[in-house]
């Protein structure tokens, strides 16, 4: 079942994550038309081999990766995936907000890993634009969860105006 939620629709995930062991020479064939996700730590160690790839590229943040470490390179990417190792590890929320608000990243920011329905609303508010749901999550409930609240007190990356700037 497709579990990538984006723009209120479900798609098959078409990304592949590279590791230190991945043989980039055969990448063109192995990865074919997939989007290649490069972990921040590998990119920082040596980004040159990846820049030679012809596939579209995304950057993969683990929970302890800091956006400022790749500030100058963000324009290489149309997709940034932020991994949640467990759904109660909330570092990814700050990562997404910094990418959107400080570094003005305008591409797709995707939540991956332990992504559950009941956190989607907060993720959306922090600037996430797509969600790779954990396998057991129900599509129909996920769509509903994106609209849990029609109002919010504080500004965030989805809408910077707090309620107090809207109250009559």
């Amino acid at each position: 079942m497709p579990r990538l939620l984006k723009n209120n629709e479900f798609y098959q995930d078409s990304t592949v994550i590279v590791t230190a062991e991945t043989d980039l020479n055969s990448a063109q064939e192995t990865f074919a038309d997939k989007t290649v996700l490069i972990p921040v730590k590998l990119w920082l160690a040596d980004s040159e081999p990846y820049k030679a790839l012809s596939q579209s590229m995304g950057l993969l943040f683990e929970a302890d990766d800091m956006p400022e470490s790749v500030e100058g390179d963000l324009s290489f990417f149309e997709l940034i995936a932020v991994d949640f190792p467990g759904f109660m590890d909330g570092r990814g929320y700050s990562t997404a907000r910094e990418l959107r608000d400080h570094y003005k990243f305008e591409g797709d920011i995707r939540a991956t890993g332990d992504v559950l329905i009941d956190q989607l609303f907060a993720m959306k508010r922090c600037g996430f634009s797509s969600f790779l749901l954990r396998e057991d999550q129900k599509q129909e409930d996920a769509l509903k969860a994106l609209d849990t609240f029609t109002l919010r007190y504080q500004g965030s990356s989805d809408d910077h105006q707090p309620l107090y700037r809207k109250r009559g």
Partner: protein
Amino acid sequence: MYKYDEYDQRIVDERVSQFRDQTRRYLAGEIAENDFLPLRLHNGLYVQRFAPMMRIAVPYGLLSTQQVRRLAEISRKYDKGYVHFTTRQNVQLNWPLLEEVPDILAELAEVEMHAVQTSGACIRNTTSDQFAGVAHDEIVDPRLWCEVIRQWSTFHPEFTFLPRKFKIAVCGAEEDRAATMVHDIGVHAFKNDNNDVRFKILVGGGLGRTPMTASVIRESLEPEYLLTYLESILRVYNRYGRRDNKYKARIKILVKALTPAVFAEKVEAEWEIMKERATLLPASEIDRVSQHFTEPDYQALDDLDWNDVSLGAPSGFQSWLKQNVFRHKKPGYAAVTLTLKATGDAPGDISAEKLEIVADLADQYSLGEVRVSHEQNLILSDVQQNHLIELWQKLETFDLATPNRGLLTDVICCPGGDFCALANARSIPLSEAIQRKFEDIDYLHDIGEIDLNISGCMNACAHHHVGHIGVLGVDRKGEEYFQIQLGGSASKDATLGKIIGPSFKREDVPDILEKILGVYVEQRHEDERFIDTCQRIGLQPFKEKVYAKAA
């Protein structure tokens, strides 16, 4: 007090729908136990020793009498007809059913109440001075700022899964009655030389296993920056706070590891980038919220002469007047504390019937408002002095006039092993044993002001580190023992108590306390409080007496 508008109401109503749906999915087996855990915690629902425990938010300790009556009704309909007030000004039900919690939340929402973020690793209820707005020593009314922080922190999407729970306290008076020095963030509101409101910001206080007092990271902050500054602190904590060990995950550990100066630098760097964003508080919002905390129409009265009042009063009134009546900023008025510490009652517990009586009395004698203090007592904040005798007589009838506010028997106590799954020891029976031993009110008044705090485990819900006398339940090979510490204080110059030595069995603790108090009586200077004697003479004289070998 703050009244919801259509926006506030819609937000709590949508919260009820959200949790109703989550509960339905959980009960249908669609949400796993572990995935449901933080969802219920964010709605105040713990699973305790015998049943779930539900913690309802009382924002900065303020309740209308309508809300008090609703709590009484709910406790009858869904629980066993009583509630428990906590050390963070909230209120708990000890026996609700999970299936009924959505209905309880719906009934609360009808009177502008909720259980949002009363547990879990998120920003908890902001606490404050129970005498906010009426205290004679107030410089800035903290309620406006508490409400602003409440709204900002409610469902803040970035800070829903912090490394650990996060508590903010605000005070604006000479005396710190909100224990701000032992909170994750303490906000001290004051006025600068131009009479403008400013905030001093402290971080990294906390109790638990590693008690610490907070450090100042900014001496003076303009009100419009309050929220962007708090947001910067929270972001630094969310990014860098430890997540590998829950006992090292509070912000105090991060502040200590980095040093307060380095932590402050990180906050300021973050703040430089975001301080001018839309979160900047406009004057219009400060104005709007402050409209809810304007001064009521007090009558023009004169202060009464207490000696005259006492002369004509029945016996018993005088000790209550001395102990439970607090000086009001308006002449002719007083704030009255109803301690929930009558001997035999679990500290902080009150029955539905008594809640309704308190609501009636608050309508009749105060201005329809009830306050909750972190000492787990209730306050009628605006009583005319010429009604005090009449009010006292009614309180007496209902056993609500125990004249022990601030005294030894005004024990701050956690639910302990009788209810809580974390506790090592039962704190309520100890509290009762102490109350029984020290029932002589003249002796209590002679001993004077003492904060006695009893926690059933090192999570320190009863803040034993900052009690003048702190008692901690420990487990020694399956047996309940109690460790005693002396010299703690929760005031602005907060200090942490020191352990006097090996722990004691429960039945011995009241006698040990008597020995400790004996040392104080022997050594005190005239008019010296217990805590001051303690800090002057140190632990040694107490140790010698307590651990003296029988001759």
